[in-house]
């Protein structure tokens, strides 16, 4: 039932739409919110309360209170009073068993009261301990808000800068924005309503409806702009968040029909709806009392009007029927009414200022909390500064003519005067402690409607004053935020090599390897292993980190970083290198090729390229050598051509002599392969004669196709793992961890301790006798495959762990790597592996099973 058309109404009566509430079709006008349309349809109960399941109706109509939370299109906890009506929306009640009118859980209100004071479950539900999960499930079912569910939705984040960011689009905020815009561009205004119009604010970017979530460190203001999180950095932040109308605390103050002036005003002025038939107005200040003529104008009979500035009220209580207001008793006078507009004054919405570092203190003359001492870069304008006009201070809580009736201090958490009194009696005599115990101010409104009331009540209960009680710490977010908005979209990049699509075409099973997608195998890992052993295989190793080190000091620099020696490395030769920390721990490994007198080509593990580059840069920031360090990982592709036929194929594609004399093991040569200039590194991670070809990324598919055209069988990571385990080649990060050292990993031969200095040398010199474990190879007969991380067991006690294990067809055994106690690191030493309940007998194998002398590699 709408009022006749009014000037300034927000609805457009020429445009209608419908949405669904349960099975009901609800008609709405453009400009309606879901809440106003539901109200127009006759709905008065909008929710059931958190704990007692009491019926609740529209209270503030500003999106601040918890009374109109519903589930809209599967999204829980939507404040329907401010959510624009959308055609086809599906709205459901939440936290009810049954319907809003008949919620079976409402029994908690009738019988639960005396048994369920705040924190009751910490005291009564502690035994038996085993039953807590059951209790928890019951409690979660009985109390709460909406249920998370529905379709997953996408949220995004944007990083924004502004010269001036104005939060709040009231009169003061708009004036501040216009004044700032007159000084130059870069002014943004954020308002939670939908009334701001860009046309009225020339030169200002208008974000509405949007909500500033908080003020974080460094002046970061995240703005919730409907599934888009704008992370604002502004030179100046102007807070114009205004003041919040405060409710009064009296028996029945949560009945449907008790409203704040803002709700009545919006219902009448914006949506042409009469908030009730017969009203009582009780107010502490002008803005609260000014509602009376507006109500009369809307045809509401204003039965009585109580101006608390003129005469304080001593007793106040409301009675309801089925949760809806029917009578108000004020100082003994009973007044029949279905509407009570109550106003306990206005409290500056200072939260954002407090979060930014402003001090908050009581203004004794106004009886409200006001912000003081704003930090640099933060300004406040309008009512938020405390300019709310003089008003009366209401009693912390009113009582009715007869005792009883719940008096709600906090509507979000269903906390009553009784709960707070009990908390004080139990010794929670500081507001911060009481907050945590009673959860007052911790609900969806975040204290907007209960901070002041709880402070005043606390002062009364503890016999002190409001100033001494103070206010609780304001923390972000100050407005409810969907978790998805904070999580944002997953922005981890997926890295693909330039040969990626060839792998897809060949039917490779792709898996994550760090940020890279890499082929696990092309369908038959065992056959791929055989191809490398007996014929020819090719694997995409473009993911290897690749770093160029160039400069007159390049050799000296590497000599000082690596435990190995590099000063004597000849141009065109390669050496395996391991990087260690000053603590002697293994950081990364790879090969270092000297490709010029002062030019080195360093490869790292696939996940290590960035951290190794940072490591190099860091040491050079300290040492300041004349070297340039360039990460060329993304620019270069690389493939490893491996198998007995690799020399023949390479020779044909390069059209040059690649004999063992021309390119011997650990040689680096620049060759043109299939027309593409390549750096060819003769190394053998997979244990067969092989060549790594490094070349410009765009030629990836061409080189790959050429090699495959010569009969090279693509192989993936899984066959590579088998091959490298047959050779006992370790993978840093897989077989080693942050505690592993060169000695413990069995690479005692690698560091050159006669070098004057290298990073990690001291730890070796000082730590030699402190070896606690050793990485060794092992074999086991083919059977159960030990899982990665499976326990090594000796004499019935844990004595190490398996890091890698695979079945080797060639060996007819399981081959793997494991950490064992140092005295067990002897050829053939037996130990047991416990994996998934099975016990596997294994023995230490210090030399690789396959080609232990490396003859095939060198041939």
């Amino acid at each position: 039932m709408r009022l006749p058309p009014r000037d300034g109404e927000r609805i457009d009566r020429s445009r209608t739409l419908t949405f669904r509430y349960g099975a009901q079709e609800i008609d709405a006008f453009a400009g309606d919110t879901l809440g106003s349309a539901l109200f127009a349809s006759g709905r008065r109960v909008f929710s059931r309360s958190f704990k007692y399941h009491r019926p609740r109706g529209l209270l503030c109509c500003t999106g601040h209170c918890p009374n109109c939370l519903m589930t809209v299109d599967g999204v829980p906890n939507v404040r329907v009073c401010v959510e624009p009506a959308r055609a086809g929306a599906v709205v459901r009640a939440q936290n009810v068993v049954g319907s809003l009118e008949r919620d079976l859980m409402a029994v908690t209100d009738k019988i639960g009261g005396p048994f369920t004071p705040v924190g009751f479950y910490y005291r009564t539900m502690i035994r038996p301990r085993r039953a807590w999960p059951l209790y928890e499930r019951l409690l979660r079912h009985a109390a709460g808000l909406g249920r998370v569910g529905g379709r997953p939705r996408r949220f995004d984040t944007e990083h924004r800068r502004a010269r001036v960011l104005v939060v709040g689009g009231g009169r003061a905020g708009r004036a501040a924005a216009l004044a700032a815009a007159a000084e130059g561009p870069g002014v943004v205004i954020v308002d939670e309503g939908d009334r701001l119009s860009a046309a009225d604010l020339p030169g200002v970017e208008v974000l509405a409806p949007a909500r500033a979530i908080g003020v974080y460190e460094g002046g970061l203001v995240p703005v919730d702009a409907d599934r888009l999180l704008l992370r604002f950095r502004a030179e100046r932040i102007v807070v114009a968040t205004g003041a919040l109308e405060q409710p009064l605390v009296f028996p029945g103050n949560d009945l449907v029909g008790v409203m704040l002036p803002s709700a009545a005003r919006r219902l009448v002025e914006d949506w042409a709806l009469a908030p009730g038939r017969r009203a009582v107005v009780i107010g502490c200040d002008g803005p609260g009392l000014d509602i009376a003529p507006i109500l009369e104008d809307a045809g509401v009979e204003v039965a009585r009007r109580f101006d608390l500035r003129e005469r304080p009220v001593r007793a106040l209580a409301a009675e309801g029927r089925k949760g809806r207001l029917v009578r108000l008793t004020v100082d003994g006078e009973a007044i029949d009414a279905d509407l009570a507009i109550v106003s306990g004054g206005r409290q500056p919405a200072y939260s954002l200022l407090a979060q930014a570092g402003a001090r908050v203190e009581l203004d004794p003359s106004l009886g409200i909390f006001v912000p003081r001492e704003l930090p640099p870069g933060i300004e406040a304008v309008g009512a938020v500064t405390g300019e709310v006009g003089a008003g009366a201070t209401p009693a912390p809580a009113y009582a009715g003519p007869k005792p009883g009736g719940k008096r709600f201090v906090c509507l979000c958490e269903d906390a009553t005067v009784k709960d707070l009194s009990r908390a004080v009696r139990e010794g929670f005599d500081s507001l911060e402690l009481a907050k945590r115990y009673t959860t007052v101010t911790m609900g969806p409104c975040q204290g907007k409607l209960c901070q002041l009331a709880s402070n005043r009540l606390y002062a009364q209960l503890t016999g002190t004053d409001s100033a001494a009680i103070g206010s609780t710490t304001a923390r972000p977010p100050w407005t409810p935020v969907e978790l998805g908005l904070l999580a944002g979209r997953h922005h981890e990049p997926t890295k693909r090599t330039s040969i990626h699509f060839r792998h897809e075409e060949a039917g490779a099973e792709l898996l994550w390897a760090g940020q890279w997608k890499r082929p696990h195998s092309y369908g038959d890992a065992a056959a791929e292993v055989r191809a490398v052993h007996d014929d020819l295989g090719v694997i995409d190793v473009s993911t290897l980190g690749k770093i160029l080190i160039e400069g007159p000091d390049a050799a000296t620099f590497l000599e000082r970083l690596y435990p190995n020696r590099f000063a004597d490395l000849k141009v065109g030769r390669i050496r395996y290198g391991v990087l260690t920390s000053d603590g002697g721990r293994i950081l990364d490994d790879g090969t270092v090729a000297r490709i010029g007198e002062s030019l080195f080509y360093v490869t790292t593990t696939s996940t290590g390229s960035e951290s190794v580059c940072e490591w190099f840069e860091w040491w050079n920031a300290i040492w300041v050598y004349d070297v340039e360090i360039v990460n060329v990982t993304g620019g270069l592709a690389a493939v490893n051509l491996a198998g007995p036929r690799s020399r023949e194929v390479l020779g044909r594609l390069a059209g040059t002599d690649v004999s063992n004399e021309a390119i011997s093991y650990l040689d680096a040569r620049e060759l043109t392969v299939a027309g593409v200039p390549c750096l060819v590194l003769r190394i053998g991670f997979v244990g067969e004669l092989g060549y790594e070809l490094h070349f410009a990324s765009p030629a990836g598919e061409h080189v790959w196709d050429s090699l495959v055209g010569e009969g090279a069988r693509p192989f993936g990571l899984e066959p590579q793992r088998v091959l490298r385990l047959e050779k006992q080649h370790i993978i840093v990060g897989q077989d080693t961890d942050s505690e592993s050292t060169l000695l413990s990993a069995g690479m005692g031969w690698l560091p050159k301790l006669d070098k004057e200095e290298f990073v990690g040398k001291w730890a070796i010199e000082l730590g030699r006798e402190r070896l606690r474990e050793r990485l060794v190879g092992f074999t086991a007969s083919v059977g159960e495959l030990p899982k990665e991380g499976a326990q090594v067991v000796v004499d019935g006690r844990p004595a190490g762990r398996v890091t890698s294990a695979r079945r080797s067809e060639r060996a007819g055994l399981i081959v793997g790597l494991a950490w064992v106690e140092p005295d067990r690191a002897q050829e053939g030493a037996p130990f047991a592996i416990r994996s998934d309940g099975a016990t596997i007998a294994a023995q230490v194998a210090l030399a690789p099973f396959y080609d232990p002398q490396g003859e095939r590699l060198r041939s």
Partner: protein
Amino acid sequence: MTFLLPCPHCGPRDVYEFATTGEVLARPKELPTLRELTDYVYFRRNAAGVQREWWYHRLGCGSWFLAERDTRTNEVLEVELPPARASGA
């Protein structure tokens, strides 16, 4: 942590663009005792106050620099590039 860190090259940037290795340590000049090495590798002052730190502009210019930061407030008092010294000093 959402504070702004002024990179000596790029100016104030969101701290998430940077990596840090924490407080600047005095690396032993020559072979230390085991205790000295352990102190250097594992122990930190963890100051509640102004601390000199290494920062790396990972998502920016890729430079290491030094910053004096109050660990209580995240106020950055000073930033500077590491001193350019003679080779290998």
